[in-house]
């Protein structure tokens, strides 16, 4: 029997489709989804959004960068090799359904000064729509680049299910920013899968503000001598739910990971932070630090925070800590006693809480945009 030759993309789509039909949507019986019910997603009948993502300003790309559609490039060595559609249902759903995606290739030794920004906008007109943005970044050895993903949308309920794979060659330096300001009714699920070569320096900044139901998974696999920084900031209010799951796999020795996630919860919002750190047997001299701090501004807001450390090597340094706190009334009074009004005093202290994450953003326009978003969010809600 001779089967018609199928393209690589068709093949993985078909495999992913089958795998999703086996896995189905996760339920709260799955440990990784214990605090996040995706029932609102699974019971909605989404239509494909139709509009495929287009390479953003591909023509203006600097030398050393190539931006193309996934279907136009030879992505077989990389695509779907890292983000597992075998184990993660949403990755399978994305892999089966992505409308075509973007491939960013950074040439060996290229230093790309200007950030590469990918703007993903959704709009739901009348009926719920789903889109499955897919991004593949391959940074060859010794390259340096900054990638910004921004997600926003308008209209009624829609579902964005994004997967980004980043493959960084030896000595590459990659900064990744994700700014998520989806509409209030949106469902947003995203996986960032990062494969780091030797002595790479990778920094992720996950900034989440929008969406009714949001789940971010960041999975990083480290090689020898890597430095991996995961920064996160989330601000939720009303009935918003956000779940940040991170996983750092120290597979090889002498790598360092620093993780700082900060959350601000208002109203009836709920948040989940789950930070997994795996230090494999070979990964001696690992230095891993994880911190999750939450500012809970309402009695009705709920945070579930959980470190998950699995350490199989014996000569390592791993620390973790989580805090849940309120605004300091002494500090509020101090500011008031200098003439600063109560609402301004509270906002000043909330921004101060977020300050170190904001200051770590090296792209000035993005940092200013973030400050603006924070101010708007704080002024738009009381408590």
């Amino acid at each position: 029997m001779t089967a018609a030759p199928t393209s690589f993309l068709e093949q993985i789509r078909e495999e992913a489709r089958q795998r999703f039909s086996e896995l189905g949507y996760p339920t709260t019986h799955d440990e990784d989804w214990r605090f996040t019910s995706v029932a609102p997603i699974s019971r909605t009948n989404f239509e494909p959004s139709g509009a495929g993502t287009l390479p953003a300003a591909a023509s203006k790309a600097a030398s050393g960068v190539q931006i193309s559609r996934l279907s136009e490039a030879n992505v077989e060595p990389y695509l779907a090799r890292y983000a597992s559609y075998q184990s993660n249902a949403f990755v399978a759903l994305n892999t089966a359904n992505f409308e075509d995606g973007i491939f960013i290739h950074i040439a060996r030794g290229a230093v790309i000064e200007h950030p590469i920004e990918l703007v993903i906008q959704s709009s739901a007109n009348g009926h719920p729509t789903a889109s499955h943005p897919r991004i593949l970044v391959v940074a060859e050895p010794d390259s340096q680049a900054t990638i910004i993903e921004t997600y926003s949308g308008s209209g009624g309920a829609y579902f964005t299910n994004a997967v980004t794979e980043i493959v960084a060659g030896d000595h590459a330096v990659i900064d990744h920013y994700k700014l998520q300001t989806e509409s209030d009714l949106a469902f947003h699920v995203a996986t960032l899968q990062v494969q780091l070569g030797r002595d790479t320096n990778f920094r992720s900044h996950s900034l989440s503000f929008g969406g009714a139901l949001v789940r971010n998974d960041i999975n990083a696999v480290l090689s020898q001598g890597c430095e991996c920084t995961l920064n996160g900031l989330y601000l939720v209010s009303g009935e918003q739910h956000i779940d940040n799951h991170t996983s750092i796999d120290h597979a090889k020795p002498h790598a360092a990971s620093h993780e700082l996630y900060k959350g601000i919860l208002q109203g009836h919002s709920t948040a989940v932070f789950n930070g997994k750190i795996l230090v494999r047997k070979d990964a001696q001299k690992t230095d891993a630090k994880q911190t999750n701090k939450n500012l809970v501004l309402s009695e009705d807001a709920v945070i579930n925070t959980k470190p998950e450390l699995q350490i199989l090597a014996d000569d390592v340094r791993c620390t973790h800590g989580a805090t849940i706190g309120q605004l300091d009334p002494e500090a509020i009074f101090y500011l008031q006693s200098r003439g600063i009004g109560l609402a301004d005093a509270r906002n000043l202290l909330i921004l101060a809480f977020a300050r170190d994450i904001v200051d770590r953003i090296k792209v000035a326009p993005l940092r200013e945009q973030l400050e603006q978003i924070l101010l708007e969010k704080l002024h738009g809600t009381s408590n």
Partner: protein
Amino acid sequence: MSLLEIKNLHANVAGREILKGIDLSINAGEVHAIMGPNGSGKSTLAQVLSGRDLYQVTAGEVVYDGKDLLAMSPEDRAREGIFMAFQYPVEIPGVSNLYFLKAALNAVRKHQGLSDLDAMDFLALVKERMALMEMDQSLLNRAVNTGFSGGEKKRNEIFQMAVLEPKLAILDETDSGLDIDALKIVASGVNALRDPQRAMIVVTHYQRLLNYIVPDFVHVLAEGRIVKSGGKELALELEESGYVGIEEVVENA
């Protein structure tokens, strides 16, 4: 009319009465020292005047500059020209001293119907007032009081006062925890701010500070009442006899 008129002021903290009928009248240009043993209510009086909500006023009235002070929010009191130098200045990580001062000064100016000070003028003002307090300019870019030494914190309080130029300054045990050199710097900063338009209340446990900030009046507080008032020589008297004589006055009252 006096700048501050306190009549029969009673105040509680956590249901316990601390101030049991304070009467005090202060005119612009005067410096009043309030002395007394620990637990006499000195700091409570300072906190009540600045609007701290831990304290409940149960009776009495306070008229400041012709207005009902007790009806005002803490921020409005500050905007109307009241400044309290904290006994324990609060650390505020993530907010730079400079940003904080600018927000404070502009809030006060707005209340006075003035526009925001532009960046250049603000910086010039700040640098001039810092020199007065012999403060290192690097403190401007550090977070408010965060990691400051005890002396730096107290100097920072008087520096803020110098920038905000209040009508009524309340110094709550500003001398506590200061060595003699820091005390002299703080006192000379305070003296430089003495002005016929400005009144000061200096709350202290020890007479030592009053060697450097010489008051016009001294009041002795014991068990929530002013039991003795006099000129600056009263402080010296207390220095010699301690508060022992005062406690007898209370018992016989």
